[in-house]
């Protein structure tokens, strides 16, 4: 048997995530044949086979994080009998792969020291100074929630943990981090990829945005057939932003400024098993409903199989959460900075409404608009909401 351990795919990278396998157990592979797409902090890269042989084991499934140096694939080499697989000699460092001269352990010094726990899973991102301070002060950096950019652990975070660890307080210095594959009840599941990104962006929103939510309903009883919710909502958002351009903007707290945009790029919250993904539909103000629909479908498929390029996932100027597909009428959707507004659309239901002096039953769509009150006034927000409702209540 020959074992292939995940090499450092960049410069000093500690891990990579499996995006998709191109081979399965039992497949015959040739040298340099693409085997698996791996995503690192910097790139998605194709990893080819180092040997010719038959794949006898794959370590991990798409979405799993593999530590640099950990097993990725086992092969039965062409010149070895199947029975030899069980008797093959492997070295302590991982394996003998063809004529590979060394193991990664020797070739690559980790760029940063491993944590005291030495857990092979995902490492917390931290400034080198914070990592060093944590080690010197006995704080387990893996247990800290970073407050720096993208969840980076800073020196302040470590110092705060040191204060908590003073007599009377307690800091978990030995909390084991376990691989997500564990799965026993109550066991710690370290957040990965999208779910981790969600934790970070929500913390960022909580710490920075002054959120205020206002709710109302749009009466869609008179919609002609063939209208679809998402593209109508996008059109209504465009109408709202034309009425109140201040909500189609970014707020920069550092320079106390805001940037207004002419184009309206709406990020749509998509729920995936891995967590929240926000693909962006560009320039919704200048596109037909058919074009919007085509784009929505493309992004939905891309979000589901995680094939969207980074360019489809950034720089939205407004957000939409169409959460009412299942349940829930109103909510307090969360604005992710630097955007300043998000519209939530709840479950459409048949409501008793007053029409003149008569009682009628109409289909209504509940709406919840959250805005960042640091730079948007209540008046602006309700005027935008009013324009959204007015557009939604058109027949087509």
């Amino acid at each position, binding site marked *: 048997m020959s074992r292939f*351990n995940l090499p*450092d795919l960049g*410069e000093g990278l500690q891990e990579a995530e499996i995006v998709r396998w191109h081979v399965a157990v039992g497949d015959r592979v040739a040298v340099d044949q693409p085997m698996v797409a791996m995503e690192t902090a*910097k790139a*998605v890269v194709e*990893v080819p086979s180092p040997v010719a042989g038959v794949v006898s084991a794959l370590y991990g499934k798409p979405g799993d994080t593999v530590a640099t140096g950990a097993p990725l694939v086992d092969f039965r080499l062409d010149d070895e009998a199947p029975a030899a697989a069980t008797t093959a000699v492997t070295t302590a460092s991982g394996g003998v792969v063809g004529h590979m*001269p060394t193991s990664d352990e020797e070739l690559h010094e980790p760029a940063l020291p491993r944590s005291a726990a030495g857990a092979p899973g995902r490492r917390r991102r931290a400034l080198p100074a914070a990592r060093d301070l944590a080690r010197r002060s006995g704080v387990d950096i893996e247990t800290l929630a970073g407050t720096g950019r993208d969840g980076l652990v800073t020196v302040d975070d470590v110092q705060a943990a040191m204060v908590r660890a003073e007599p009377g307080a307690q800091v978990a210095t030995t909390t084991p981090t376990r691989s997500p594959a564990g799965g026993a009840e109550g066991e710690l599941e370290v957040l990965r990829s999208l779910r981790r990104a969600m934790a970070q962006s929500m913390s960022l929103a909580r710490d920075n945005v002054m959120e205020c939510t206002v709710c109302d309903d749009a009466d869609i009883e008179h919609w002609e057939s063939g209208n679809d919710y998402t593209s109508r909502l996008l059109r209504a958002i465009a109408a709202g932003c034309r009425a109140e351009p201040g909500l189609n903007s970014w707020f920069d707290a550092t320079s106390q400024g805001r940037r207004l945009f002419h184009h309206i790029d709406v990020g749509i919250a998509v729920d995936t098993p891995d967590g929240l993904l926000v693909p962006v539909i560009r320039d919704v103000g200048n596109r037909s409903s058919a074009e919007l629909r085509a784009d929505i479908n493309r992004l939905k498929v891309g979000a589901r199989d995680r094939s969207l*390029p980074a*360019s489809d996932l950034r720089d939205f100027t407004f957000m939409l959460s169409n959460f009412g597909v299942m349940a829930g009428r109103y909510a307090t959707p969360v604005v992710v900075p630097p955007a300043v507004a998000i519209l939530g659309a709840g479950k459409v239901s048949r409501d008793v409404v007053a029409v003149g002096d008569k009682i009628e039953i109409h289909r209504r769509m509940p709406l919840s608009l959250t805005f960042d009150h640091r730079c948007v006034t209540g008046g602006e927000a309700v005027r935008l909401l009013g324009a959204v409702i007015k557009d939604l209540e058109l027949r087509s």
Partner: protein
Amino acid sequence: MKNVADFIIRFGQWLDTEGKPTRALPEFAQDPGEVERMYRMMTLCRLFDAKAVNLQRTGRLGTYAPCTGHEATHVGVGAAMQPEDVLCPVYREYGTQLWRGVTLTEILVYWGGDERGTDFAGPRQDFPWCVPIASQTPIAAGVAMAFKVRGEPRCAVAYIGDGGTSEGAFYEAMNAAGAQKLPVVFVVVNNGWAISVPVAAQTAAQTLAQKAIAAGIPGVQVDGNDVIGVRAVMEEALVRARRGGGPTVVETLTYRLSDHTTADDATRYRPAGELEAAWLREPLVRTRRYLESLGAWDDAREQALRSDCAAQIDAAVQAYQATPKDSTDAMFDHLFANPPEALEEQKDTARRWAAPRGTGH
């Protein structure tokens, strides 16, 4: 106000993207054997590049800077130089280096993290790869100064990228070379991207060749995917330099068809469609078409070339992998004639750590 100086920058192309001559070809280009020699080297570079990236992806090579797309520029420059000239490369001009006698194995040893790869057995006088941007250009001017002082009819050739032309060192090198009329050619490989910075964001200058004007030396542009054109322009510049006519800046217009290095992902910053459009201008196809038009090439010869290259590459990979590790002393040696005490201590510490880790492999 009256005009006191006028300048013009010319662009040259000899073979179009279909391999059809766009003007009278120089003598070397009418010799099928000579064109074939260049085409063979370009193909070797292309195939070697793919192998090196795969070696990195499987943990058998460190970071590697690919050359795909630059083959015509690199081979054209190499073919124009004389063996006694001196090359001051950046870090991806394998076509020039291989032409001058650097081996595939040496390239792999270097990118495998072993400086012995820069100790070329072939062109002893050529400089090693130079990662600090533009720092090789004043060195090349210094080399040319030595030739001038000694009265030797030799030239220095320095490579630099489009991004590198924004560095002060490049201007200083051009200025010194112009003032002293030094026998040096600065080859500006304009591949459109300085890692993620496009040329349009790099400079307001219309061409990079025109940067020569301020130094008072000629600057010329050539289609960098046209190996005939690159060689012709380089030969002219080198002949002039060798005769005491001074330096030249040659800007070769090409495109980086790969990522910047194996630690880069260009899909994150390059606009969609640009890469596909660039592949239509790539250098190998037009050279092959031209060879075919001379009746000097066909599918059978192409197949034979590819298997010949594959065998060369495999042999180089095996030689690289069979290269014994250097001792830990190597990183301390050659720094000081009389090493300070602290360094000697570190050397001892490194030896103690190396001993147990070195076993079992």
